[in-house]
């Protein structure tokens, strides 16, 4: 039997500045707080938007809507191979220039009055141009949004005056992930939904495994808990300046269902402990019973990385209690039908499990919104939530980050 002290050895007390007391509930339901998050976080920091492989060739593009910034965004690879981001907004009178969600085009012509732009954002042509006064074509390209790529992930930053580079922003979490061959897993499957939750209510659920035994009792209870770890304690975690990582326990004695066993014959699984991996970028604590790592790339992305596969969540805040959710499961391109079965099983399993999370989060948000609780309790194992709470507070209250980095804990 573990003592209480052993059960509280996750590392919270290594961070006296994060405290051990309850955290305020206000950030989870206050509309005013949400407005401040939009201006101090979502308009200031790097946001994970897509994979580079979604635009492999010159002139390939994707568009999407970022509700927190009310911005339709165009990401396009230029003739020079460089990936750029723009407000998807005509310089003439503001129409959305590209209506398709993805495609390939050398130029983008606005459907309203025919203004056309090249894939590097510059203005290509203006119909009946002679009628305009002082038409400075050099100044009338699409408005750029800062964009950069790390490990094949495209990030954007709405702060045109921002000075921090993407690699500085990712810093230690970038080092942590270095070497994981993301580009190898270029086949993907995705689902999207709009959840009636605060974005942090959603992300918090993916920063702790305390809930596994209860919420996922049907689906994950046996694979991520076991007699030696009944509450799915994480064996390793690290908090960084703004980001966080934890390694999730996998029960080595888990007995897969018949179909899982069949699917595993042909490829990896995110829930079966892939024991003792020595691969770069995963299982940093070299835990013997390990299922996957969960990384929170602040503010909008959670990555779950296992051996030979990974998935991402993106959370796009719409309102204090509404969030757009994008989940993408990545695989190595299937070479045969068996590998496709493995991937189809993995997609279905991930979707089923996340649906269990989603309903709980919506119920939680509905209850939180009453304001009936002013504060929440956090377990030692919920250190990552405590850390994110402090990071968010740092941005909202002080306009910057107050949480402090570095080492946490190795078991």
């Amino acid at each position, binding site marked *: 039997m573990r003592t209480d002290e052993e059960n509280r050895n996750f590392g919270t007390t290594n961070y006296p500045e994060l405290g051990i007391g309850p955290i305020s509930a206000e950030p989870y339901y206050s509309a005013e707080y949400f407005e401040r998050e939009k201006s101090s976080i979502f308009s200031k920091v790097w946001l994970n938007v897509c994979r580079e492989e979604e635009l492999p060739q010159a002139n390939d593009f994707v568009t999407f809507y970022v509700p927190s910034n009310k911005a339709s965004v165009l990401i396009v690879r230029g003739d020079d191979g460089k990936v750029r981001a723009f407000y998807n907004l005509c310089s003439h009178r503001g129409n959305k220039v590209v209506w398709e969600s993805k495609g390939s085009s050398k130029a983008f012509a606005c459907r309203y009055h025919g203004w056309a732009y090249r894939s590097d954002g510059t203005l290509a042509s203006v119909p009946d141009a002679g009628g305009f006064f002082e038409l400075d074509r050099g100044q009338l390209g699409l408005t750029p949004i800062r964009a950069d790529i790390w490990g094949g992930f495209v990030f954007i930053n709405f702060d045109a005056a921002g000075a921090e580079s993407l690699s500085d922003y990712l810093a230690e979490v970038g080092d942590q992930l270095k070497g994981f061959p993301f580009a190898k897993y270029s086949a993907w499957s*995705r689902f999207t939904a709009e959840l009636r939750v605060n974005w942090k209510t959603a992300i918090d659920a993916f920063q702790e495994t305390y809930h596994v035994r209860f919420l996922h009792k049907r689906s994950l209870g046996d694979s991520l808990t076991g007699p030696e770890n009944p509450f799915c304690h994480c064996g390793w975690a690290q908090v960084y300046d703004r980001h966080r990582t934890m390694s999730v326990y996998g029960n080595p004695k888990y007995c897969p269902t*018949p179909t899982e066993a*069949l699917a595993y014959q042909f490829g990896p699984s995110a829930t079966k402990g892939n024991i003792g991996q020595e691969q770069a970028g995963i299982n940093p604590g070299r835990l013997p019973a390990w299922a996957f790592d969960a990384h929170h790339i602040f503010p909008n992305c959670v990555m779950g990385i296992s051996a030979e596969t990974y998935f991402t969540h993106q959370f796009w805040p719409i309102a204090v209690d509404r969030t757009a959710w994008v989940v993408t499961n990545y695989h190595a391109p299937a070479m*045969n039908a068996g590998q496709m079965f493995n991937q*189809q*099983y993995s997609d*279905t399993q991930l*979707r089923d499990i996340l*649906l269990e999370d989603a309903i709980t989060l919506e119920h939680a948000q509905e209850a939180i919104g009453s304001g009936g609780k002013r504060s929440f309790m956090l377990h030692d194992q919920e250190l990552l939530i405590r850390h994110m709470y402090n990071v968010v507070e740092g941005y909202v209250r002080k306009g910057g980050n107050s949480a402090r980095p570095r080492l946490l804990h190795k078991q």
Partner: protein
Amino acid sequence: MSETEQIEELPENFKELERFVSAWSLASEQERNRKRRSSSMHEIRRFYDAMLQRMPEVSKHLNGFNLQELPQRECRLLNLAFSFMEIASAVEVYSSPDVPDAIEAERLTILTP
């Protein structure tokens, strides 16, 4: 139209699975999920039992083909097997067509490239 004409053909060794083709051989993940949710456990169980024992041979057979050049019959069989992957958890994990205590899957948009 006679019943035989409605049945779509599968490769030679998998004739006994042809009775499931019209209902379960569906081309997209969204359609397969919709079919799972609109089916009874009885219907899912019949499909599951029939498929589970044949899956090793289905895999073996289809693994012999280039995925880019799958003949029609093999393609039908592949989609049937994908549906099996979709419904397996209904039988093995949830004992229910849909995930219990979860948001309605209808709220998801499932996209594959």
